[in-house]
């Protein structure tokens, strides 16, 4: 079992299948489903990743979907070194110092 009742989980749903998408969309978007994710506390006694489950979201709404993650967390960060940015501050400071006031 991956999760038990009360665990904080993330669920997934397909809102619209490819082929059901709105008209006037670019072809690449038409070809893929419209997918949706939300998070909440698991209401089932227990569940495995991939199971259809029910959750109660943080604000108390009930939602159903496929269990995809237990204790989900954010992984975004401050990125890698971008050497292309390193000239900006030094160059500007030099320019300001050039003639002074």
């Amino acid at each position, binding site marked *: 079992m991956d999760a038990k009742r009360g665990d904080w989980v993330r669920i997934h749903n397909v809102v619209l299948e490819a082929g059901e998408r709105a008209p006037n969309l670019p072809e690449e978007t038409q*070809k893929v489903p*419209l*997918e949706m994710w939300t998070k909440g506390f698991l209401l089932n006694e227990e569940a495995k990743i991939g199971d259809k489950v029910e959750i109660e979201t943080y604000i108390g709404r009930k939602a159903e979907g496929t269990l995809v993650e237990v204790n989900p967390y954010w992984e*975004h960060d*401050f*990125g890698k070194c*971008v050497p292309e*940015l390193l000239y900006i501050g030094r160059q*500007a400071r030099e320019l300001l110092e050039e003639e002074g006031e």
Partner: protein
Amino acid sequence: MAKDMSYEAVMARNAEIMKKAVGIDYSEFEYGTIAFDYERMMRETGYSLQEIERIQQETGVGNTPVYELRNLTKLARKFAPKGKGARIFVKDEAANPSGSFKARRAATSCYHAKKLGYKGVIAATSGNYGAAVASQAAMRGLKCIVVQETFDSKGIGQPEIIEKARKCEAYGAEVVQLTVGPELFYTFLVLLEETGYFNASLYTPFGIAGVETLGYELAVEFREKEGRAPDVVVVTNAGGGNLTGTARGLIKAGATDTQVVGASVDLSGLHMASDIHFNRKSFTTGHTGFGVPFATWPDRSDVPRSAARPLRYLDRYVTVNQGSVFYMTELLAQLEGLERGPAGNTSLAAAFKLAQELDEDQIIVVQETEYTGAGKHIQPQLTFAKENGIRVEIGDPADEVPGESIILPKDPSYVKIKELDLNRMRRSYIRNCIQSTDVKKVTQEDIDFLVEDTKSSEEFVKSVLDEFGVEY
């Protein structure tokens, strides 16, 4: 019998759902064929400026500091003709509770929702507005759902949007995340219907009126400190609400001579509903992909009549490239000690160049900043761009191709602006009015409305009507 929740059935209930979720009967303000009474809508469904000041004070919104950017001004003057190079100021809207000017819009929406007895609010946004609504909802004891377009079909999301989701959750909101596509609106309607919450749309009169205090504060503050209102105010433009509200606030303060300039990041060539282009852009707002379509057709928004109507107020509309905005973001931190943005610095990049056209004693104001955080910062955003195959180079921004490259200006003289043709946009707006109503003949009321809604002349409106064979 259970309601039909199919896509078609829910979309067909749009008007009915919206009426319940916004509490405005927009049909009351319609007259003529094309025309509607914008000012009456703003007056009767919104709040007075004084009421909004009070509402915003209750939750710590507004009265943000203004800083003079002395080093950036000095740098701009080095590249300006003799005697040119206006003083550049910035209003530090990042000082609002949720880190952006959007708190002003959210403050009024949440106040209104609470007053009308709604239990919660819902907003469809991938931007700072989500965090603003979540924060204001927390203060007012309302529940909050934010619906975001977050991922491409591979499940990869822009770091900037991911950060905004995190921030919404930090304030206790539920965040519903979707892949690319305008059918997000369907999910939004389903949630409104299911919960009975208030639609904290960015485009209601409350939302727009919330920004009026920003323009008003600018006029008052500059008169106090500098003896006159700013000569130019530059506004980052996407959906048009920031510009509309700021301009209306300036006018309400009597600052009718202040020029209002819109600025957007140039993302021409990228399709906003494309699963492939989605992660090939480095700006998720403040760009031409929203700025141009919303200016030329404001009523495409999530309410029947948008209160954000930028063409009514725009004196000039310019674009800058992605590389220049990242560059100015770095300069703002390095020379002025303010780590903000990046997206909010679009107007700063434009102002840096615009200042070089103005006299030294003139005043140009960048009217917002936004908070910086993990994901929402030049480094992760450029890292993400590179991972998505975008070339990051130092050179001439004129060579940047959105979706293929980001070009950082090799020195400050390479920060440039491109002018958008406002008459072309006005024509496009009038064409959209004609096409959406399928009108063959318009009344004088319609003409008067179009003149006002495009800040043009009767002669101009008539010339466009002639072009499309519409009688009057």
